[in-house]
């Protein structure tokens, strides 16, 4: 038993040499034919994945930006339409008001001019009436006072008399 126990630990130069050589060969062969291609492929794949993820993220950000832009544009155009509509409405309101005012002014103007005309007509009528009355009165007085008074004195007397009369 003890002797066999020793055999577990006994040195074995041949085994060391064999394992040393073959393990080194395995290491070199695998490095050349296995680990090289495998690790290269893994690194390549990782970089591809990383690149595509970055790309996807970028695309997502772009899409989000685009969507935000779209929303913003829509809002803006909506607001714009609203503003235009409101403007148009206000304009229409203003125009209508203006029109009404103008019409009213016109009517007023017409009224005023009509009134002035009437006044003028009335004044000229009064004037001509006064002239007529004066003439009539003079003629009448001439007839009455034809003998003792010359025409100029009589005319002055009548005029004085007429001025004393109330205007209307």
């Amino acid at each position, binding site marked *: 038993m003890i002797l066999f126990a020793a*055999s577990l630990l006994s040195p*074995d130069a041949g*085994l060391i040499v064999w394992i040393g050589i*073959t*393990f080194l060969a395995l*290491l070199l062969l695998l490095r050349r034919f296995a680990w090289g291609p*495998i690790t290269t492929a893994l690194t390549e794949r990782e970089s591809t994945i990383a690149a595509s993820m970055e790309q996807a993220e970028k695309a997502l950000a772009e899409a989000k930006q685009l969507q935000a832009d779209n929303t913003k544009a829509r809002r803006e155009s909506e607001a714009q339409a609203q503003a235009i509509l409101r403007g148009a409405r206000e304009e229409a309101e203003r125009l209508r008001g203006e029109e009404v005012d103008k019409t009213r002014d016109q009517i007023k103007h017409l009224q005023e001019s009509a009134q002035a005309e009437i006044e003028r007509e009335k004044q000229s009528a009064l004037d001509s009436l006064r002239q007529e009355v004066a003439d009539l009165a003079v003629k009448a007085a001439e007839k009455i006072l034809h003998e003792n008074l010359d025409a100029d004195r009589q005319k002055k007397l009548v005029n004085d008399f007429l001025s004393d009369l109330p205007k209307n």
Partner: protein
Amino acid sequence: MIQRASTFLLLAVLTAVVLPANVQAAEDGELDALHHSANAYYLDFEPFGKVQLPRIFVIQHEDGSYGLELFGSTASAILNGHFVAEIEEHGDETDSETHDAEGAVLEATEEHAEGDEHVQAAGKYGGISLEQLEGHLVPPGGAHVVIDMSISRHLFFAWIGMLVVFVIMTRLAGMYKRGVGRDTAPKGLFQNLFETLIMFVRDDIARPNLGDKTDKYLPYLLTAFFFILTCNLLGLVPFGATATSNLMVTVVLASFTFILTQMGGTKDYWMHIFWPPGIPMFVKPILMPVEVLGILTKPIALAIRLFANMTAGHLVILSLIGLIFSFANIFGPGAGYGVAPVSIAFALFIYMLELLVSFIQAYVFTMLSALFIGMAIEEHHHDHDEAHGDHAADTNAASVLVS
């Protein structure tokens, strides 16, 4: 209920299978766990027999010339008369039937006269006895063996392990070369399984320790990891042997780590060993041999850890199985059968544990290798203030050593 019944059934079947296999061993003598774990120059397929492995010797003849001796098996080496077996005497079992002090050994054929039993035993392994098969071969006369390059059981299984690793990994590399796993996702159990392990070694073992020098040392770490793992698992296969339970194998593996560590060592690394900065002058000569010793203890610990772990599990399993025969010998066959289910249940548990340990030890060896190499190749960028901080622990250790 059904589960419990099937467990008992399994145990019963295992008992039935294991018992006859070991009856042979028991008849040959005690079931010897150490013997089973030790190296030998045959593959053990008992109860079906043993397959002897080629023997290769470099010998130095009497006249000082060197020669290479090649034999297909131990039996042919002995029967051709070129070698004789020095038989180790254990107990009173063998009566030094073929051997005396000078190493003059009788030819195997001459033993046949010593009785039927011996005739049978002697002829059993291609014409030689088990003692001869396991004996130490020496050339008769004045010649002596310079180096025994024979293919031993552990070497054979180490080679099988290497072959398995090589075939698996070149196939895997082929898949990546075709673009599977490079341009597309990895496909299938095979590729996913090994890719996970490779990524584990790269990302969790190599990269944290080696940083940007990972690519340089990754091939070694991967090779060591998969070789150790495969060898560990081959020891759990029926009729298999664990190459990593041989100290010679683990010493070679640790030597690779040792050589890579020293070759990669930076100026800082050597500086820290031969003239550690940041400690009082009088401590430096004391610390230097400690540091030099530290270079050697790391790989030695690496080799012994793997060897001991892989040997221990097998010894426990074999001891548990051996318990059956011990009970049978002491208390009669009934006790042997009675204790068998318990023994086998425990052996099964240890077997599962060994499966776990196979992975853990492959991981630990690779991890520590990466750590040691990483410590040696690390570039220190510290000024003197930092140096004091760094070596506070060293100084403490030194003061402990001094006191």
